[in-house]
């Protein structure tokens, strides 16, 4: 169930239009869960369909355990896929859906069903086997789809936004279930999602795609704290961008001088400092910045309710900052605060030309 998957300059274009997938290269280690993250139209589903063999790439290679799978039909690739819609076969019972892969592989019916029962138990649906698929709720349907895919013992399990049609509570349950399944079966998983939080919860590493190009392939934490470009920072929901110049490893801007984190060096020249708004601490003005933090005096310019949190916008001279505080904290527009920015949370990226 755990194969290595490698994409080598995978490119896909439709009818001569701009490439939907543009020279994407990455490796997924055995047992790893990779999330392909991107806005709609970024080509993430095209990557998945190419891996599955449902579409053939325009150029580039797909290697499973080092073997090129070009020209191998989907049914021979050993990849199972769970789609956004469960697509359970309506003419089969729940159990026979899960037993489908074994049945079409020629396993005797009793044996196939026994095996399917174990996978139903794995997705916590013991005893649901004899039901028709129409008697299931949305969450249960997706669990059965997951069990059916796993029962096929895929070399790589492909998930195409499988939980995006479920309500938040069910999604959380499914994320937990997927975590448990990964622990028990250690499958190699490639999951497509447009949800940053889902990618962060489920995946070990994330490949961030935009307009078919791979912007960054990294751990979730590094995508947030060390984005490779301004695009990445923005797609990951970063709200702080402070233009300045790096000289002798120090970024100078209206925020003052901020040194590169220990062990890192920043390239010289014009650059944009990015830092997660979640990392910015707000204190009352006289409080000095603790060790390892840069302190600036800022003025609250806007406050937006975000349920239990409040998003705060701040002005520091000509620069703007953002921060998040508990909704109960009484910060008002025009109030002066001390903003503390941890050095370790800072990084610089090249400014967008023009």
């Amino acid at each position, binding site marked *: 169930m755990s194969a290595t998957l490698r994409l080598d300059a995978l490119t896909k274009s439709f009818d001569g239009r701009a490439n939907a997938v543009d020279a994407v290269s990455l490796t997924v280690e055995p047992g790893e869960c990779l999330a392909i993250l991107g806005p709609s139209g970024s080509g993430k589903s095209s990557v998945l369909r190419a891996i*599955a063999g*449902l579409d053939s790439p325009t150029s580039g290679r797909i290697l499973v355990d080092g073997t090129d799978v070009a020209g191998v*039909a*989907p*049914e*021979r690739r*050993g*990849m*199972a*896929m769970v*789609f956004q*819609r469960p*697509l359970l*076969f*309506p*003419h*089969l*019972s729940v159990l026979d859906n899960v037993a*489908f*892969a074994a*049945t*079409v*592989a020629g396993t005797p019916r009793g044996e196939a069903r026994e095996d399917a029962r174990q996978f139903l138990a794995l997705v916590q649906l013991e005893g649901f086997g004899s039901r*028709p698929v*129409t008697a299931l709720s949305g969450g249960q349907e997706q669990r059965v789809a997951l069990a*059916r*895919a796993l029962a*096929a013992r895929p070399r790589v399990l*492909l998930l195409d936004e499988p939980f995006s049609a479920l309500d938040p509570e069910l999604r959380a349950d499914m994320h937990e279930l997927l975590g448990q399944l990964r622990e028990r079966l250690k499958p190699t998983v490639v999951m497509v999602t447009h949800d940053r939080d889902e990618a962060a919860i489920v995946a070990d590493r994330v490949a961030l795609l935009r307009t078919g190009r791979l912007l960054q392939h990294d751990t979730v934490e590094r995508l947030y704290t060390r984005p490779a470009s301004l695009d990445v920072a923005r797609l990951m929901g970063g709200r702080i961008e402070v233009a300045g110049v790096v000289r002798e490893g120090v970024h100078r801007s209206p925020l003052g001088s901020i040194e590169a984190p220990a062990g890192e060096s920043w390239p010289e020249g014009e650059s944009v400092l990015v830092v997660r708004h979640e990392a910015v601490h707000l204190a009352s003005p006289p409080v000095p910045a603790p060790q390892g933090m840069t302190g600036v005096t800022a003025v609250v310019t806007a406050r937006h309710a975000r349920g239990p949190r409040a998003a705060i916008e701040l002005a520091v001279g000509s620069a703007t900052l953002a921060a998040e505080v508990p909704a109960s904290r009484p910060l008002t527009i025009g109030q002066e605060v001390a903003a503390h920015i941890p050095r370790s949370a800072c990084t610089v990226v090249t400014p967008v030309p023009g």
Partner: protein
Amino acid sequence: MARSGARAVGTTITALDRQAAGVSPRGSRRWSSIALVAPAVLIALFVVGGGIGFSLVQSLGLLPLVGEASLSLDAYLANGDDLVRGIGLSLAIATASTALSCIIGLTAALVITQGRSTGRLVAGLSAFTIPIPHLVGAASVGLLLSDAGIIPRILGIPGTEWPDIVGGSWWIAVVLEYTWKESAFVALVVAGVLASRVARYDETAALLGASRARRLRHVVIPLARPAVIVSAIIIFVYTLGSYEVAWLLGRPYPEPLPVLAFRLFTSITLTARPEAAAVAVVTTLISLAVVALGMAALRRTPLWK
């Protein structure tokens, strides 16, 4: 019709008003839906029920053209041998036509749903076939395939050596004509059902390791089954009761049920009218039995919900 429709709509509005005023909504909704379908049901009942009822009464000797009315089964027994032979022949023609239409139509539907250019061609041909009347189809088959037809002439085969396709003992031309037209019907009905759902299920099944043949057997055909059964019922009942094709392309004897019924009905012997009604009643009973069997088969498919 239009006036009764307007009245039905009026009833619905009244029903909705009453619903708003707090009258049991379920009861009034039921009445309003009955009122809405009533005009269509009444007309259908008048034509179908009246027709069958009249035939039944006439076949039992209660409505003779001449003579005294008396309850008897004479009309059913008068042409006993012809009736039995007719039943056998009609069942055989209908079964062969239905089976061939379903096989060819299902295959065509699969080609159509593949979405390639051949699929569009087949869909176009099927759509073109539907509006051509059976009578025109039968005449064309006769002109093409009889021993003096166009095809033996083009091929330069003398009529004496040409097989008895038209008017032969195997009723091949009749079955061919039905199959030609009804397979187009099956193709379009089944393709319509498959088009909306089969592609995603097919992909899912492929990713679960099912080969093309396995997908056909385990996914596509089961998904198409209800539509095929419904089409089969319609085709069987139609071919069992259809007159003109069998009359044009068949042989004079033995006669299929509708040909027998029509001959007796137009017979100069006035006493033959109840006999014609008896044949019609038998045809109707067989049709109803086939519909019942078909519906039972349909109810057994898990998709029929």
